[in-house]
């Protein structure tokens, strides 16, 4: 039973496996790909410097998700204290710090689409949705991470379903209406 993996190997494996998903998660908070990448790289560097012993722990994935989340929240807080953004059309929320930078104008089309779809969800609901759908956590694992009940996770996921339905219906109507104007352009 000689399972010997150096810490470098563990670290690289974790990076290769989780980097992109961690960035997608960060993107949902920050809505900017560069900012998301910087945030995630920062989290990885801190992990190496401060918590290398976590690397061989089975909970490393949750640790990573939580760290990315906290990092994003602190970035948003910092931005806010500098008066960088005032999300006027962001979804209503009592957890303002979770509201991403919707005002940003230079988003790519893809960034915009994601921001739009996810932006329909209230912050906590969005987080739950991403934990389950992006990171593949079970309801129970997500509940443990967020320190809420499984029932609460069920509520959020049901809500996400409903909001996407209403949103896509709205988009579909717009697309449908737009098609009438096509000949004009």
């Amino acid at each position: 039973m000689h399972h010997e993996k150096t810490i470098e190997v563990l670290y690289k494996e974790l990076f290769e496996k989780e980097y992109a998903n961690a960035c997608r998660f960060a993107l949902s908070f920050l809505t900017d790909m560069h900012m998301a990448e910087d945030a995630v790289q920062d989290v990885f560097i801190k992990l190496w410097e401060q918590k290398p012993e976590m690397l061989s722990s089975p909970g490393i994935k949750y640790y990573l998700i939580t760290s990315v989340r906290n990092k994003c929240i602190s970035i948003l807080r910092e931005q806010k204290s500098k008066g960088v953004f005032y999300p006027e059309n962001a979804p209503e929320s009592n957890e303002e710090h979770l509201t991403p930078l919707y005002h940003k104008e230079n988003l790519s089309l893809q960034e915009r689409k994601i921001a739009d779809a996810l932006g329909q969800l209230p912050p906590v609901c969005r987080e739950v949705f991403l934990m389950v759908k992006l990171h593949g956590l079970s309801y129970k694992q997500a509940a443990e991470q967020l320190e809420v009940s499984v029932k609460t996770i069920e509520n959020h996921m049901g809500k996400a379903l409903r909001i996407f339905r209403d949103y896509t219906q709205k988009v579909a109507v717009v697309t449908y209406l737009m098609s009438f104007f096509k000949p004009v352009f």
Partner: protein
Amino acid sequence: MMNEMNVQIDELIAKKLCGENTPEDDAVLQEWLKAAPDNRQIYDKHAKQWMEVEALIKGVEFDTAAAWEKVAAKTVDVKAQPARRIISLKSISWAAAAILVVGVLLYRVAVPGYSEEVFAENGNMEVVLPDDTHVTLHKGSKLAYNKTFIGKERKVSLEGEAFFKVHRDEQHPFVIDAQAARVQVLGTAFDLKCNEHAATVAVVEGRVKFSAGDDKNTFVVLTKGQQAQLTNDKLVSSAIEDENFLYWKTGIISYHERELQAVVAQLSEIFEKDISLAGTMPVDQAHQLITVSFDGQGLEPILSEICLVARCRWEKGPGDKYNISPR
């Protein structure tokens, strides 16, 4: 009422789409699907939308390889740090550098050793450290520590073997300078054996970070039931196979379905006596599985009991050699 029902159905559909559905959920969902012909369509539409959003999120590409290069340069590739510091010294004036060197020298001299030293000369010793950490020091081993722990780490030094039950304090890691190895914990219980060339850790509770002496990058993190051995700067970890690794402390020897041959070999080691199985013993008798435990008995009563279980007998020959043969 209708709205509440919709909310419940939304949750059930979400659960189903996430694979979290229970048989009860399925029953309710089936019921709903049958209730109106449109419901099937609604469900399918949901499934499609859900997948679209998922695909949208997962469709964003990030260049992991390029990012790794950046991160590696700041983490795993940073090893030649001392060399870098020397170069940076050049950029300061020589006078400043000289002051720095003197400062470092003074600092090194000023670092205090340990104020307390315990040597378990005549038998095992119990030591309680200032942070309420309990240490059982194996006979012949040495432990050094400071009367009060100051600074970020709780530092001690060990030569020989000891069992540590470390008081939990996440703010102040407990660090053991164990000759060839270095052990770092927050709060756990484990056995540590070391000399100048090798070290072994077996963890009873919690988590232990075990590293080679000077090389901070070679380490393993062990949890309950795991052990690791350091020899020639190589770390090998495994599950604890020997349930009697704490015999020196507890006086308890216990075997659970262990081969007679292995039992005899270990007793020989524990009691430091030559014990062997007779050449006339059939192979299957030597390999029979033994389950038995002892608490504080001497070698001869132990041998008698084992022989009773294993249908053999023991005799003591010249030079304190024990021989076990079939009955």
